[in-house]
């Protein structure tokens, strides 16, 4: 193998240094560009995360309000089952009436109209002492089911003095079909 002269060695050394510097600059710039892009992406993610966090924080108040309403109405909409909610509501009505000392009368259920966000209606009749009837009425909004009392009829029962007959017309709401709706002015 031919031996390089010192001048040739110096030339080769300088060339190697030049190539190394070029490669370092080339890949260095590319690397820094890649790192810069990664950093920009990271900053975009940080901004998105901050925006989302502030959005979530605004919902803390709503979540508290929801929790209070759930406690007050004894109702968790997330656990309602479309298939069984009417049956469960009817059962809860009858259980509440019987446990309050009322005697059950006719119970009629009907399918809701498809245009409404109602699961169905329940017509319910019961008889008993006035105190028991009023207690039952007070308990209606805490049944634990999405029920709106459409109408109430109270009348004297012919089976005995001091006995009352109550006829309720209830609407069972369908949470699955629920969309934004203006509350009524009842």
């Amino acid at each position, binding site marked *: 193998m031919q031996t390089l002269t010192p001048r040739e060695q110096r030339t080769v050394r300088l060339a190697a240094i030049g190539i190394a510097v070029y490669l370092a600059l080339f890949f260095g710039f590319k690397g820094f560009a890649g*790192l810069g892009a*990664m*950093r920009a*992406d*990271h900053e975009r993610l*940080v901004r998105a995360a901050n925006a*989302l966090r502030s*959005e*979530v924080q605004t*919902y803390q108040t*709503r979540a508290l309000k*929801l929790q209070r*309403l*759930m406690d*007050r109405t*004894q*109702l*968790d*909409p*997330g*656990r*309602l089952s479309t298939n*069984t*909610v009417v*049956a*469960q509501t*009817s*059962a809860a009505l009858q*259980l509440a009436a019987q446990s309050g000392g009322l005697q*059950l009368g*006719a119970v*009629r*259920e*009907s*399918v809701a109209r498809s245009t409404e966000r109602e*699961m*169905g209606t329940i017509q319910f009749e019961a008889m008993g002492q006035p105190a028991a009837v*009023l207690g039952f*009425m*007070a308990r209606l*909004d*805490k*049944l*634990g*089911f*999405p029920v*709106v*009392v*459409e*109408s*109430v*009829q*109270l009348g*004297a029962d012919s089976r005995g003095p001091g006995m009352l007959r109550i006829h309720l017309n209830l609407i*069972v709401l369908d949470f699955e079909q*629920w969309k934004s709706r203006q*509350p*009524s*002015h*009842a």
Partner: protein
Amino acid sequence: MSFMELFRAPSLWVEIRPESIHLHNGAAGEDLPAAWEAAGTPDAATRDRLLGALARLAPRKPWQARGTLWCALPARGVSLRPVSVPATTQTDVRKFLALQIEARFPVPPDQLAWGWSEPSSGAAARPDGLREFTVAAIRREPVERLAELFAAAGFNAIFGVAATLRCRPLPENAGDACSLDLGTRSTECLEYGNGVPTTLRSLPWGLGDLVDAVAAELAADRNEAAAALAALARGDAMPPSRRAAIAGTVERAVAVLADGVRRPAGAPGFSRILVTGISPEARLVADALAAVLRPLAVDGPPQGTLRPGLTPAVAGLRSATTGAGSRLPIRLAVAPPPATADGGGGGVPSIPWKWVVRGGVLVAALVLFPYAEAFVGRPILTRRLAALRKDTARLGEIDRRLEFLQYVTDNQSPYIDAVYVVANAAPPGARIESLSMNRRGEVSIGGYTQMPQQVVDFRNKLVDSGFFSGVVLEEQTPIVGGQPRVNLRLTAQWKGPAARESLKLGPVLPDPPKTNAPATNNAVPPTRPAATNGPAQS
């Protein structure tokens, strides 16, 4: 001059002697006369001369760092002692030596400028587990004053002992030797045992005494005697009788010095004596000592002209502080010097690579941190973002549930309140046969009273209750029969929620027993679990 030399801090080598100060910068030097105050600090004139020489020999540019000034101190006030400490790690050496100094020196170590050297390089401890050190110490005040003076001139001063620098390190098997440095009125005597400095003394005889002796012999004044001695040292031509007279006087005068150098009877004598000095007469003294102490070998200073500032100590100091691996034999330090591997702490100040590397790492971290944050934090942030987005998906559900429950709550009609108001308004003896209410607030009351006036009262009370916005008497029919009564049929419309808000309607009913706990709608077992909610009739 290379580019880097523009930024290199200047270095200067200085020897302090009782009568003079010698400075050299590697290329040129100056010899300054010196006078000292009682505290060991230079007087004002000496200080001015010294500062001027420093400015001439080592001018410092504004962009340059502080220079390094290596200073060799005279033997006056320096105590040199061998000290043994337990073989221990390098970092504990100074602590152990300080304890030994506390025990063996009359002054506590914090009032001393002291340093040490380990002749056997510290690696191999003696069989008794001890390491041998040579400790040199001097009162710290004069050293501090000098350091302050040099600092004012822009130099960081590093101090050593001049006597240990005048001869090259002796080999360990060199036997006992002695180094003599001739001053004007005293001679520094450093004794070596097997190459290790053991004793440093100041003998009360110097070249001034030699001049006095020659002046007495020649019956001449001191200047003439000094000139004669210089001529003899240079080998100038002079009458043989005069040469013999001066040489004999020198030999007789040097006998005093020889007595000071001689070991006591029974002690091993020196194998070699080295004589140095800053004047040519030192060669005469060396020759005379050789004649007096024959057959002991006495080496004189090398032949040649002494260059300004380049005394034997300055030359040794410069040799010990330049070049790779060189170090001061003993570095006198006031504050604890950084521990070095050579044990003496007297090496050439090197670039603090450790701190350079740390600084570089910090700068690199500063530059790369934003990128590293993006690189490292991205997966974490992505996970957090996914969790947040999952939460965001639940936000719509929260809205939906809230709206649903709000609707259910808003549509709970005040049936109980209406019954309470009607019951309170009903006159005595009246009978409510039927009461119908619906979600729109329409109330229909049917019944009878005993007198027509009671119907009016009943109606007025309903209006006065504030609960109803309109009460209409649709029918009032008197019945004439066995017991007179008035049938009535009333309709009313209850007010909106805002108007009813301020009304106080009777006692608050106690909470009914909960039919279902948080998930009440699941607490009641369905009568037909698998059935649909199709119409049922009972």
